[in-house]
């Protein structure tokens, strides 16, 4: 079980002080947060990709490489890499390079993005978002598996005799997750390719997450990659912790009430009961997180959104300290009753060992 954090890379005003961090502060804060995540023992840090304000995360592989150079152990991922508007050839090259530089300490999560104008800025049409995700990934998949590719599709210029360099580290393409909140076809895509499926989880009721994950598991089995409970599942989550739960509620409320996604909408209490948001003591966060398995089954990756809504860096780092404190209990809880045939989260080393075992 991998436990980590994910971020969208937004620049948001702190509603309690009215102060807006600069882009420079946000970019360096992301690095500091990733370093801290490693210090407290987390397994994964995932960064977003956006091409419009108020986001600073336009170039994830640059930031990931910098973080990788300053850390030793934590795995770098994305949340998400835009498969619709990014040329799959550049994804193959950028992430292929990152895979070598990090000695395989990376993977990526593909998503479509949701801001209309971003598509035309990159010469694409949002109405064809799903087709773009399907075709672009089909090309990316080949670029990482075939040394020489002849290819023609609808959305980019054809390729004749093209080799994406560098070739994958140890001949093993980076592991790919597909992220989607509500599109069954993306779960289908993940199942078809034997890739991972990540559900954002945090903005919608658990009943919806359960159905999307169940669909992915069912189709994973349908395509013959293993039993449904062996499919590779990741979930989002979000919390705000203080040792005293009422302190957590009081401190987080102004951030919640003004948050970019759900702010000025439901109350903190309603949203906490309708979605996985947990604002309270470390024990409450521990128990709530371990309950996610009740509706998605044993899974492989749990990422938390903690760096958002204008929370100051110092607060985010304190949240990581608290997460580090409950980490052993989280790991023990996730391990409890987990059947032996449920796979661990994929890593480069683990996949390499599996390949060698299969060959032997």
């Amino acid at each position, binding site marked *: 079980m991998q436990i980590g954090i994910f971020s969208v890379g937004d620049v948001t005003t702190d509603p309690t002080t009215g102060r807006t961090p600069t882009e420079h502060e946000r970019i360096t804060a992301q690095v500091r947060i990733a370093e801290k995540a490693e210090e407290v023992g987390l397994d994964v840090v995932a960064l977003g990709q956006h091409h419009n304000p108020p986001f600073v995360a336009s170039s994830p592989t640059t930031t990931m490489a910098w973080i990788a150079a300053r850390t030793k152990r934590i795995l770098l991922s994305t949340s998400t890499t835009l498969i619709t508007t990014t040329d799959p050839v550049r994804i193959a090259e950028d992430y292929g390079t990152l895979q070598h530089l990090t000695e395989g300490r990376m993977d990526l999560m593909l998503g479509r993005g949701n801001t209309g104008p971003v598509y035309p800025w990159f010469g694409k049409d949002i109405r064809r978002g799903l087709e773009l995700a399907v075709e672009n990934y089909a090309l990316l998949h080949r670029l990482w598996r075939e040394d020489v590719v002849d290819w023609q599709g609808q959305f980019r210029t054809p390729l004749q005799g093209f080799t994406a360099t560098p070739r994958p580290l140890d001949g093993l393409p980076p592991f790919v997750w597909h992220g989607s909140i509500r599109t069954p*076809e993306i779960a289908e895509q993940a199942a*078809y390719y034997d890739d991972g499926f990540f559900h954002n989880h945090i903005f919608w009721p658990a009943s*919806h997450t359960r159905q999307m994950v169940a669909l992915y598991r069912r189709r994973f089995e349908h395509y013959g990659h293993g039993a449904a409970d062996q499919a590779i599942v990741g979930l989002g989550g979000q919390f705000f912790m203080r040792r005293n739960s009422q302190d957590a509620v009081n401190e987080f409320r102004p951030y919640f009430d003004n948050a970019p996604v*759900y702010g000025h909408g*439901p109350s903190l209490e309603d949203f906490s009961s309708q979605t996985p948001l947990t604002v309270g003591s470390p024990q409450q966060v521990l128990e709530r997180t371990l309950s996610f398995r009740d509706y998605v089954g044993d899974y492989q990756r749990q990422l938390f959104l903690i760096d958002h809504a204008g929370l100051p860096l110092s607060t985010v780092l304190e949240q990581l300290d608290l997460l580090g404190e409950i980490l052993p209990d989280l790991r023990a809880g996730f391990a409890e009753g987990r059947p032996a045939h449920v796979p661990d989260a994929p890593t480069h080393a683990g996949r390499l060992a599996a390949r060698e075992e299969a060959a032997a």
Partner: protein
Amino acid sequence: MTRSLVVVSAGLGVPSSTTALAERLGAAAASALRDAGERVEVTHVELRPLAHALADRMLTGFATGDLDEALRTVSRADALVVATPVFTASYSGLFKTFVDALDPDALVGTPVLVAATAGTARHSLVIDHALRPLFAYLKAVVVPTGVFAASEDFGAGGGQDALGSRIDRAAGELAALVAGLPTRRTPLRAVSDPAEDVDDLPEPVPFEQLLHPR
């Protein structure tokens, strides 16, 4: 077979003339359906108590509780009566917000009787200039007679053009679109149902078909 007749009112006052009109239309439509030999179950959906939930739905993207149930009820209706007050030359914002919260396919083919109320008859074209286009966009089947009631209609006498006869004519038209026909199809895209724990996501298009269309 029991027909589900759902009556939606966006009236705000207590008592509300919009809700009063909606209830009269609902009763008349139910009676017309029974006359045509159908069994009818009438459900009333008041939007006022759902106003906060609707604002939340706009901001979060998902509906909860009573709103979720109301959206589900409307999506599964065999026939619909909708009534809104006229606000600033159109249906009210609350009414439109509820319609916005419906799945775009929720009302495809659903017979709908549209109604509106206002202080004066000068707003009566809201029926034809605002409500009809809205439901045409949703591919609902709007009955020919829309019912508009100004305050003065509630005090007017009987006769061919009186409110009562307009209500009966519209209710008859709605019943004629429902009675004797097969029951409403399963919604094209059902909403999620946490309470019943059903799996109602649409089946995905098989991937080979996504990869190689046509």
